[in-house]
């Protein structure tokens, strides 16, 4: 599927991967589904299998035990896909850098299997749900320059009216 066509999709199906997280980011992701933020009305859906996903939401620092599993999940995700590194740990190991059981950060783990993987970073500890929505919207806007204004307008509307 052409990147531009893919990125025009309004409905992004995401699969969540916990790569050794403290659960704060995971809970904020689940918060996205609850009535205050309710991202399902924007077509963002959390699916149960990577094969159905357009994007991976990866949280956590990437422990040694988790690293191989993250790579396996990435291999199984249908391409094209975007990997969202949610939170400071996924973006760059954060406060856990140097730990003996840490293999991350997530981008290096993914790049080991696919050097051309598309990775988006949403920093924060944890990133607020609004930041996560913004991250997804910005990534889509970056991937489809012609439609940039439309997507950014949608994004601003989402943030102005979080519910």
């Amino acid at each position, binding site marked *: 599927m052409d990147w531009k066509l893919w990125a025009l999709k309004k409905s992004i199906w995401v*699969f*969540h*991967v*916990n*790569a*050794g*997280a*403290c*659960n*704060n*980011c*995971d*809970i*904020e992701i*689940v*918060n996205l*589904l*609850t*009535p*205050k933020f309710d991202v399902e009305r924007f077509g963002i*859906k*959390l*699916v*149960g*299998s*990577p*094969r159905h996903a357009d994007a991976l939401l990866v949280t*956590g*620092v990437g*422990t*040694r*035990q*988790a690293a191989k*599993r*993250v790579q*396996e*999940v990435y291999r*199984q995700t249908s391409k094209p896909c975007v990997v969202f590194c949610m939170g400071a740990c996924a973006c760059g190991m*954060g*406060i*856990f850098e*140097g*730990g*003996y*059981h*840490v293999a991350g950060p997530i981008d290096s783990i993914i790049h080991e299997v696919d050097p051309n993987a598309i990775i988006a970073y949403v920093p924060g*500890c*944890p990133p*607020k749900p609004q930041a996560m929505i913004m991250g997804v919207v910005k990534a889509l806007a970056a991937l489809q320059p012609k439609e940039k204004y439309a997507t950014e307008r949608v994004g601003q509307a989402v943030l102005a009216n979080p519910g």
Partner: protein
Amino acid sequence: MKETLRKPVLAVGPFHPLQEEMEFFQLTVDGEKVTDIKARISYNHRGIEKLSETLQFDQVPYLVSRVCGICSASHPLAYVQAVEEIAGIKPPERALYVRTIINEMERIHSHLLWVGLAGHFIGYDTVFMWAWKYREPVLDLLEEMTGNRNNYGNVKVGGCREDIPEELIPKINQELDQIEKKAEMLTKAVLDDPVLHVRLKGVGVLSKEDAVNYAVTGPTARGSGVAIDVRRDDPYAAYADLDWKVVSQPEGDVFAKAVVRLLETFESIKMIRQALAKLPKGPVAVDVKEIPPGEGCGHAEAPRGETFHYVRSDGGNRPVRHKIRAPSYVNVPSFKASCIGADIADVTLTLAAVDPCYSCTERLAVVDGHNAVIHDYEELLRLSREKTARIRKDLGSPGLKLEGC
């Protein structure tokens, strides 16, 4: 029953997507009953205790508040209490009250989170949505008080990093009134529902004797008649100055644990109101020059139970040894006692009843004697919800009485 390879890709429902790691909990079955449980917990191991030795004493709170997302106020509190013990530091009174307020706020949103998850596991997604909707005002208040919805970073050796602004107090009280009303509605709906009575009573029973042998703490213990609570037994922060009671139930089943958590939420609201009314004037921290050699044991009552930190100092800037024990570390293994002999359909609920750190509940798999996976997490969730549906049908399909959504 489906036979699959040992490490398949797991497909699971929308709220608890799962990775392939299946060796967290493996349950062996004989027919519909669980006969054995094996556990491995390498997935989340980040080597925090060793990392702590590389940080200075005043940097460690930032590290330990990230041990677990929902106990992120209790871990730094237990740690700084251990260090304050070594150095003989007494934080100012106002700091003790601020610490109490933040910790009780965390307890409220953590218990509401649990109620939502339990609802999800049994198939009452309305409860899930409802409980999590009413967590949001608590998170917003915490953000106004500390700057973050989670990982508050408000505790330091010697007191608190930040004060609660006086002008915020009327707003906190107003919001608490609203939250209390909603919690009352939720409690009544859950505790009066005949389907939930049948579904939760007698399920996942942890006997008092097992509760002692497995050294469980928190609502897991108090739901089995072991009425321990660090806030009363070894008072810290401002708990000795407040009027509140320890909630406990003797039955040891999932229903008892739900009752304990729901009623504790009201005790927390009571405590916050009292603490705000009695908030002493003054600074929120004392100056700390150095930590002498010594050892300290700090503990705090997190929403899940006792958080325990042991710190050893040799007079330098960093801990020589820092032992961290989260409550789930002792509560989760009790699953062995409450799950062996139980129905497969009750397994997710029984584990959820000890309120483990959220990601623990996802890593369940049921295997036969030869290690072929016959039920993955999605199946276990489905079995649990089917059981609820059968019970509802038998009782004439009464609806859950939740209003004001």
